[in-house]
């Protein structure tokens, strides 16, 4: 008799075993994705190419395949959509860099030692709670205030911002000739500082975490060689933190685009939930989603080339 151990090897190789255990670990996700996500995703895509209407008696939907009609309507018939999308993307183009700079700046400051640091950190992370879920726009989220909120916003939009006075002064200085695009941009960002601070909770956290992984001995060596704080920042901190910049940019873009009070998202919501145009609403969301994915891909491609990996 041959002992079992001396038998020619049968069964699974190491790699196969690994593959099987890997699948066992990710099994929850695979089941969840197939059972709960894949079909709704497919339906959302199908809706974008169909006319969908509610049949209240059977509480189901009627479907009719219409091809590209919804998408055509979004670009050629609907006057608001393309404009809203362009406005939204332009807003992203200036908000995301502003969020990036702001959160990096704050993270660098919060990384220094000073009295009350624990408190300040806690406050800067508060937007993680305060700017999430139902708390966004809850003040106007009821039938009474919804009606007057537009009026209030219009009143506030008139140069009542922090920088309104400065802008007027500067315009008077140059004789009412306008103050140039760059200043307008800077002032706009200063006016938006609250939105920026509220949108940077997680980003500050990511940067702060990244800053703490930098070995302090590098700074020590640099300062012995006579490097100033400014040089330290650009030659040590910035390259070392650059992988985080990619993460923060990607997160900020997604967060900014899918926020519930965005113009396009509100349009989708109105079409879907208030007007019952499920097909058209879905088509709008899909177009927007494709645009966002393209921007994300582009940003990812550009930034990942500039990122410096220490190890």
């Amino acid at each position, binding site marked *: 008799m041959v002992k079992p151990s001396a038998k020619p090897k049968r069964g699974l190789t190491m*790699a196969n075993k*690994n*593959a*099987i*255990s*890997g699948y*066992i*670990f990710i099994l*929850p*996700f695979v089941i*969840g*994705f197939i059972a*709960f996500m894949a*079909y*709704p*995703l497919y*339906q*959302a895509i199908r*809706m974008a190419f169909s006319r969908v209407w509610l049949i209240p008696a059977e509480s189901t939907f009627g479907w009719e395949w219409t091809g590209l009609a919804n998408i055509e309507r979004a670009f050629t018939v609907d006057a608001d959509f393309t404009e809203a999308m362009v406005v939204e993307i332009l807003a992203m183009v200036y908000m995301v860099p502003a969020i990036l700079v702001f959160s990096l700046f704050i993270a660098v400051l919060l990384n220094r030692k000073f009295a009350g640091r624990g*408190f*300040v950190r806690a406050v*800067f*992370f*508060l*937007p*993680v*709670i*305060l700017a*999430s*879920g139902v*708390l966004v726009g*809850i*003040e106007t*989220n*009821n*039938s*009474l*205030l919804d009606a007057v909120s537009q009026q209030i916003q219009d009143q506030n939009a008139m140069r009542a911002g922090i920088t309104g006075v400065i802008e007027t002064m500067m315009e008077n200085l140059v004789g009412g000739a306008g103050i140039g695009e760059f200043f307008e941009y800077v002032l706009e960002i200063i006016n938006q500082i*609250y939105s920026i*601070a509220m949108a940077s909770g997680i980003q500050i*956290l990511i940067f702060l*975490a990244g800053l*703490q992984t930098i070995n302090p001995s590098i700074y020590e060596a640099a300062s012995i060689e006579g490097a100033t704080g400014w040089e330290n920042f650009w030659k040590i901190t910035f390259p070392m933190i650059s*992988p*985080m910049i*990619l993460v923060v940019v*990607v997160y900020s873009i*997604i967060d900014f*685009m899918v926020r*519930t009070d965005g113009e396009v998202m509100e349009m*989708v*919501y109105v079409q*879907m939930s208030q007007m019952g145009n*499920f097909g058209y609403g879905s088509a709008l*969301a899909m177009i927007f*989603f494709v645009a966002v994915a393209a921007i994300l891909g582009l940003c*990812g491609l550009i930034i*990942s080339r500039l*990122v410096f*990996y220490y190890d």
Partner: protein
Amino acid sequence: MTNVGAVQKEKQKGAIARYLERNRATDNNYLLKRDISRIFVGLFTTILLFGLCFLILQPLFHQFSNSIMSRDDLFDPTVMSIPREATLDNYRLAMELMTYWTSLFNTIWVTAFVAVLQIIACTLVAYGFARFDFPLKKFWFACVILTVLVPPQVLRVPLFLNFHFFDMFGLMTLINGEPLMLTNTLSGYLLLSATAMGLRNGLYIFMLRQYFRNMPKELEESAWVDGCGKLRTFVQIMLPDAVPMLVSCFLFAFVWQWTDGFFNSMFLRGYNVMSVQMAALGDTFNFHYIRQIAAITGTHGAAPPIALMEAMISTGVLLGIIPVIIIYLFAQRFFVESIGQSGIKM
């Protein structure tokens, strides 16, 4: 006394004189310049940071002062932020309208339960992605990213349909004779959570995966050589080291689940969870007020004035988020620590 003061003065003078002497010894007043610029930078940082803190906290202060104002103060234009007579009436009414204590109790246990399930599922999945090679790995990871990317607004209707008549490839009809209704049931959301499909679960999978990837492989290899199985290695070797990250993911899951309006209103309406109550408070108060006025006049009601409505909503928001803020303040120090160790990189 005077003697002591004089000695101290002498000492101080001595200190300043010595400092100036040291300064003179450096090139170009280097020491003095350096210290002055340090003081200015410190001052600037403090003012900036505490100013921004005020900016973030100001709406909360405003809500708080609104919430303790009596009706007279709310209508008095000379009262800005400090009420003449503070009152807790708003809190009493808001608590009654929100059925505060039951919904607080329900929200705590439901949210904690759901968050624990989500984190267990996400940890397993994240470990699978971090440490094993298997076919289609890239595809499945792309699916994880997809679940983060697709905005819930797109999926609102299809998801609702899918869960309202839950019938996985006709399986349920086969077993049950009819599709299952999963909307408005806790079990529906528990299923989603246990399969890592809950709110922002893709993000937790991503964070945990990065964390596991950065842990030394030698740990597991030595455990494996000693005859430890895959699951046991995971539970006994990897998990204890991942506790800070697990805690912060749990906190994110807890906090975001608490304030979320999307899944909560789809599945957990019956539990009167806090986010649904907060979002509905405006309209609840509206009906309450109209009914009250109608009871007085005997004919018809009137909508409440905006100032009252605002005070009521402020009170509701404060009541709703105070529990999470307390938890969060105690736990936020975990965040920096754990995310730092994970070295999130792409």
